[in-house]
């Protein structure tokens, strides 16, 4: 595992967020944070509530603007000013809230903002349904409610619609914000399997989670934030859960990992 990461790191990182700061009113939600991500790697982003994890990551997904700092993708500067820009860099985000329009069906949600249209501007519903059926077959073979509003779906089904959206559009960079928080054990296991599979396919994945167990299970590296600042980034294999807990609570790197 460590060799693989070493080899990957010879290339430029897939994503580099350099010295990002975001303020809301007088509050610095994110203060001079840097983080990077390599292809085929899962980076866990952990910290207390309001540590700035979601805010930092929303800068990458185009939902927030950074007041300072820059984003580099494939070793080139990548200005991201909107959700659309992010998508153009193949950055897909699965939000904690899932960001589904509850009154629309799975197909409409999957293609929201990127609808397939025919000549004349009419939506190509059939083609969208076909694509939705294909991707759902892979993610959740039991899914049949293609025409029901997503409000009537179960938590796991809704989650699979949100994930399908990222997978269908060939994400290279995937951001998952608490992907298993609302799921049962069985469904969560399915998501874990999917994350491993996507990593094998060479995607870079940012995983935001409260669940240290999940993070240790899935991540290659772990970045810890506290009060809007980046405490540090460690290789998962070099640290224990207690080390990471210490980082979260005290905001200090453990001596063993301080070399990173």
């Amino acid at each position: 595992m460590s060799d693989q990461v070493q080899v990957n790191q010879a290339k430029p990182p897939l994503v580099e967020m350099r010295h990002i700061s975001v303020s809301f009113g007088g509050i610095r939600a994110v203060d001079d944070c840097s983080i990077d991500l390599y292809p085929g790697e899962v980076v866990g982003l952990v910290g207390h509530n309001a540590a700035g994890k979601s805010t930092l990551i929303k800068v990458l997904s185009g939902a927030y603007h950074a007041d300072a700092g820059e984003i580099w993708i494939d070793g080139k500067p990548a200005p991201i000013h909107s959700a659309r820009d992010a998508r153009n860099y193949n950055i897909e985000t699965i939000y904690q809230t899932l960001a589904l329009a509850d009154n629309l069906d799975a197909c409409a949600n999957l293609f929201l903002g990127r609808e397939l249209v025919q000549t004349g501007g009419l939506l190509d519903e059939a083609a969208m349904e076909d694509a939705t059926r294909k991707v759902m077959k892979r993610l959740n073979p039991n899914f049949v409610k293609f025409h029901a509003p997503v409000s009537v779906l179960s938590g796991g089904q809704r989650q699979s619609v949100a994930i399908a959206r990222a997978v269908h559009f060939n994400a290279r960079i995937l951001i998952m914000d608490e992907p298993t928080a609302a799921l049962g054990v069985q469904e969560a296991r399915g998501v874990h399997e999917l994350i491993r599979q996507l990593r094998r396919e060479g995607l870079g994945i940012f995983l935001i989670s409260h669940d240290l167990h999940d993070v240790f299970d899935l991540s290659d590296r772990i970045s810890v934030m506290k009060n809007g600042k980046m405490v540090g980034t460690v290789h998962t294999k070099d640290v224990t859960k207690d080390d990471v807990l210490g980082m979260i609570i005290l905001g200090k790197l453990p001596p063993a990992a301080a070399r990173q």
Partner: protein
Amino acid sequence: MNLFRRLFARLEIDERLLGMLISLVVIWIGFHIASDGKFITPRNLYNLGNQTASVAVMAIGMVMVIIVRHIDLSVGSMLGVTAMVMGVVQATLLPPLLGYGHPAIWIITVLAGILCGALLGGLNGYIIGYLGVPSFVVTLGGLLIWRGCAWWVTYGQTVAPLDQTFTLLGGGVYGTLRETGSWIAAGIAIAIIVWAAQRQRRQRIRFGFPIRPVWAEAVVVGTTCLFVLAFAATMIAYEMPEVAARRLAEEMGWAIPEAGLHLAEGIAIPVLIVVVLAVAGSILLNNMRFGRYVFAMGGNPEAANLAGIDIRRMTFWVFVLMGALCGIAAVIASARLQSAGNSIGTNDELKTIAAVVIGGASLAGGSGTIIGAIIGAVVIQSLQSGMSLLGFDASLQNIVTGLVLVVAVYVDMLYQRRRGV
């Protein structure tokens, strides 16, 4: 009951829409009986269509406004000021330039009206979408402001007479497709219905999706086509009043036959305008990106934003559309009255919103249909004309209409809750 439900499911008919249509028929039959057979007559239905048209046009835009979680209280006043502007354009500005009765006058006037409406709507949309002032406040202000402006356009004077061709757009006695035109329109409508059903079916076959059985398709398409034909036939059955027919014959230089002149009215132009706009609006709302975004914004504005939809711009354009439709409604309303007075369209915002809500839209946003809103407009107008026919005074009409609005929404809520949506 279960059998019916299975049948509807098989036919893929919207139960809610069917419920509205049944309520409408019940209202009609009730008035028909109470008025000794005066309600369901070609003549009354013809007038009903003309009276409903301007509110129905605005309801098309109001559905979209309400789906995106906004409201527009200024539509009646926008109609008023737009009608006044058009009155001045066609009666005062253009005749000296083009000559009285010039055939371009009505076209320029209508375009000016749509433009004026779109500008007012755009102003609403800018303040609501970009400056973030709540739509209730902005349009409540607009309700007062534009009504006041309607007065200022002519300092309260009513503009009349309007251009002759222009007044045809309001229906009346002459503003119709007549017999041949009505059958042609019905024929075109049927061709479009069959083509659309066929297209949808072929699309689903293309990807091997389940399709509804041929008999179900035939029943739905057949019923719709029959309805179109029945409507055309009813409108054609309304005979032009003798005096009017005679005047038309004189103007056109027709010989008046011995047996007297029997001319059919046919489908009224305002009704045709409503149908065309409703179809165009439904395509925009249900089959194009714009409509998809409208629903997404109503269902979850944050999700829409994260999906890269420009919410502010969409809000702006929804209100522009609402304004443009007010312009068209103003054309119909002033043409029907053959004059433009500054009180035209007063209280129309309430009728329009009521129509949309009776038509099944939720004020919480995210749901609503154009066809429902138009049926809602017909329901409201039916109540009002029915009660006038029975000699109810205006105060009682308001009481009944208000009660129906509340009861209709309550019943719909019960139905929705039982279906667990």
